[in-house]
C-alpha cells in the first residue's frame, strides 16, 4: 500500500467530512442511535474503504476481498455512511436508518444488509469472529495469504471477557493476516473508560498476549496508513493498532463528552444541536461556506 500524496489526503478529508455530514443527517432523521463513536471513527473508515482495503462495491461477495468485522455494531452509522459514499448503496438510503423495513437496522443484521460481514451489537464478539475468518483463510491460503481481516473494536468492549479470549487465541495462532483497530476514545455509556473500568495501557496488554502493537492518532490519515502498512509487514504475529480518537470528532459540542455516546443527552434541544452540528460540518468548522447560506 503506497504512501499518501497530499492530493490523496485532501480527497480523504473531503470524503470523511461527507461521511460525517451523512452520519449527523441519519441520526437526525432516525431520532435515535449513537453519535460520538461514528463521528470519531469516520477518518479510519474513510481510509479503509477509500484507500486500504481490497474490495469492490460492485461485487460485494467477491471471495478474495479483505474482510472488515465491525465488533461494536452500535457505531454502524459510520459503516453504513462509508459504504454508501463508496458505492454500496444510494446515499439517500441512509435516511432510512432504524426505520421499519429499512436495510439499515439499528445494529447491523446480515439478513437485511447481506454485504456487511457480520451481524453485531452485543459487545465483545467481533474480534473472535475475525480470528475465525483469519484461521479459515490460513487453512485455505497458508501463511502467505494476501488477504487481510480487519477487526474494528471499541475500547469499552475490552471489559468483555470474550474479547480477551480472542486476544489469547490470535496470539497463540500467530495470525499475521489479522489487524485489529481499537477505537481508543476513552468513553463508554456510563462515563469515561478509566472510571467505569480502567483499561490502562491497552498496547502493553496486547503485547503481553503476543501481538504486535502500535499507538497512533486516529484522525491522521498518514499515521493510520503507515500503521496499517507496518502491521502488514509483521510476519509472525497479529497486529493491533490502538487509535486515539476524539469521540464526536468534527462537531465541537460533541467532542470528548461521553454523554453523546447515545443520541440525545439534552432532551428536546437535540434537533437544534444536530442542526448546529450539520452547519459546522458543512462549513468544515467555518473553513468553507455552507451550501445553504
Amino acid at each position, binding site marked *: 500500500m503506497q504512501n499518501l500524496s497530499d492530493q490523496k489526503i485532501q480527497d480523504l478529508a473531503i470524503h470523511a467530512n461527507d461521511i460525517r455530514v451523512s452520519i449527523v443527517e441519519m441520526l437526525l432523521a432516525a431520532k435515535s442511535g449513537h453519535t460520538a463513536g461514528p463521528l470519531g471513527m469516520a477518518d479510519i473508515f474513510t481510509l479503509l474503504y477509500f484507500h486500504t482495503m481490497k474490495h469492490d462495491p460492485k461485487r460485494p461477495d467477491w471471495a478474495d476481498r479483505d474482510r472488515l468485522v465491525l465488533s461494536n455494531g452500535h457505531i454502524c452509522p459510520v459503516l453504513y455512511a462509508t459504504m454508501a459514499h463508496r458505492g454500496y448503496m444510494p446515499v439517500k438510503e441512509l435516511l432510512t436508518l432504524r426505520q421499519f423495513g429499512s436495510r439499515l437496522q439499528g445494529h447491523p443484521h446480515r439478513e437485511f444488509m447481506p454485504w456487511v460481514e457480520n*451481524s453485531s451489537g452485543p459487545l465483545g464478539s467481533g474480534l473472535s469472529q475475525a480470528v475465525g475468518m483469519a*484461521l479459515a483463510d490460513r487453512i485455505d491460503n497458508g501463511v502467505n495469504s494476501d488477504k487481510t481481516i480487519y477487526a474494528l473494536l471499541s475500547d469499552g468492549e475490552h471489559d468483555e471477557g*470474550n474479547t480477551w479470549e480472542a486476544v*489469547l*487465541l490470535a496470539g497463540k495462532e500467530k495470525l499475521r493476516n489479522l489487524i485489529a483497530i481499537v477505537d481508543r476514545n476513552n468513553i463508554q455509556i456510563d462515563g469515561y473508560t478509566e472510571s467505569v473500568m480502567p483499561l490502562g495501557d491497552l498496547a502493553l496488554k496486547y503485547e503481553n498476549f503476543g501481538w504486535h502493537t502500535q499507538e497512533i492518532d486516529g484522525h491522521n490519515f498518514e499515521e493510520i496508513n503507515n500503521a496499517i502498512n507496518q502491521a502488514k509487514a509483521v510476519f509472525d504475529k497479529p497486529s493491533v493498532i490502538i487509535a486515539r480518537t476524539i469521540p464526536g470528532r468534527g462537531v465541537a459540542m460533541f467532542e470528548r463528552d461521553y454523554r453523546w455516546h447515545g443520541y440525545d443527552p439534552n432532551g428536546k434541544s437535540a434537533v437544534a444541536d444536530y442542526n448546529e452540528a450539520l452547519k459546522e460540518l458543512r462549513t468544515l468548522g467555518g473553513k468553507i461556506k455552507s451550501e445553504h447560506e
Partner: protein
Amino acid sequence: MLNPTQKLNPKMFNADVEQLPTRNGFGEGLLQAGIDDERIVALCADLVESTKMNLFADKFPKRYIEIGVAEQNLATVASGMAAMGKIPFISSYAMFSPGRNWEQIRTTIAYNDRKVVIVGSHAGVSVGPDGGTHQAIEDIALMRVIPNMVVVSPCDSIEAKKATIALAVSKEPAYLRLAREKTPIITTPETPFELGKGNLVFIPEQGLAEVGIIATGPLVHKAIVVAREMEKVGRKVKVLNISTIKPLDAEAVTALAKEARCIITVEEHQVIGGLGSAVAECLAQSYPVPIEFIGVQNKFGQSGTPEELIEHYGMGVSHIKEAVEKVLKRKIK
C-alpha cells in the same frame, strides 16, 4: 412389537445388550463427514477426548482448532470460520456450550445465519458423579427457542453417527445433544434416519394404540421396555422416537395423538421447555389430548450413579408405567 420396518436391534432387551455412549457415534460421524468434505472443521474447548472430537483432530490436525477453556470464543470463532465457507462443528459439555455461550450462539451463529453445529456432550443427569453443575437439563429449551436453530437428540450411538453426517450437509445452524454414559444400542445401521422425521419404533401387533409414548435420547430405550411389558398384559402402546426436536415432526406427533388420544413424553431434561413442551405446543394447535410429562420436574441434578439419578428424578421404567396408568384415566373417550 418392535416395528419391523425400522430394522431395530433385536438384542436390545437382552441383559448383555451392547452399550455405547452417543458421543462415540458423534466422533465416528464427524470423522466420516471430515473425510467426505474438506470444508468441515472442528473446534473444541479443552475436552477433545471427552467429546470424542479426537478422532477428527488426529486425522485432520490442520482443520482442528483447540480453543482452550473459552466457550464464548468457541462459538464466535466458529461463526467467523463459517463466514469464510467452512462448516464448523464445536464441542464442549452441554452445560458450557450452549449453556454459557447462549448469546454468542444466538447473535453470531443463528441471527448471523452462519451454519455451525453446536455439539453439547454430557447432557442430562446421567452425567452422574460430577453433580448438578455439569448436568445440562435446560439445553433443549435454550436452543429450541432460537429462530433458525435445528435441535437433534439421538437415541443411541448409531443414530448419533447418522445425525452427525446428516448435520454436516444440512443448511441451518444446529444443536446436537449427546450423553456421556453408555446406553443400550436400539437401532442398527439399516434403521432409517432423516432429520425432521420421527420414527415409530414400537407398535401393537394388531389394532390401534391405546397410549402413545413420544421419547427422545437414550430414554427411548426405557420407553420401548415399558411398551413391551404393557404388550405382555394386553395394553397396546406405540413409541415414537423423536430425534429431531426442532423442527418437530408435527405430522407424526399429531397422527399418534389422533390414534391413541393420550400421550406421554419422555426426556432427560426439564419438563419445562423441552420435548414435552414442543409436543404440547404442537398438539394444542392440531389435536389436543391429555399429556403426561416424564422429565426433571423443575429441579437441579446432583451426584450419584446414572441409574440412581434417573430413578430419583422420576425418569425410570416404573415412572413411565405409572404415567401410562395415569394418562389412561384422563384419556379422551
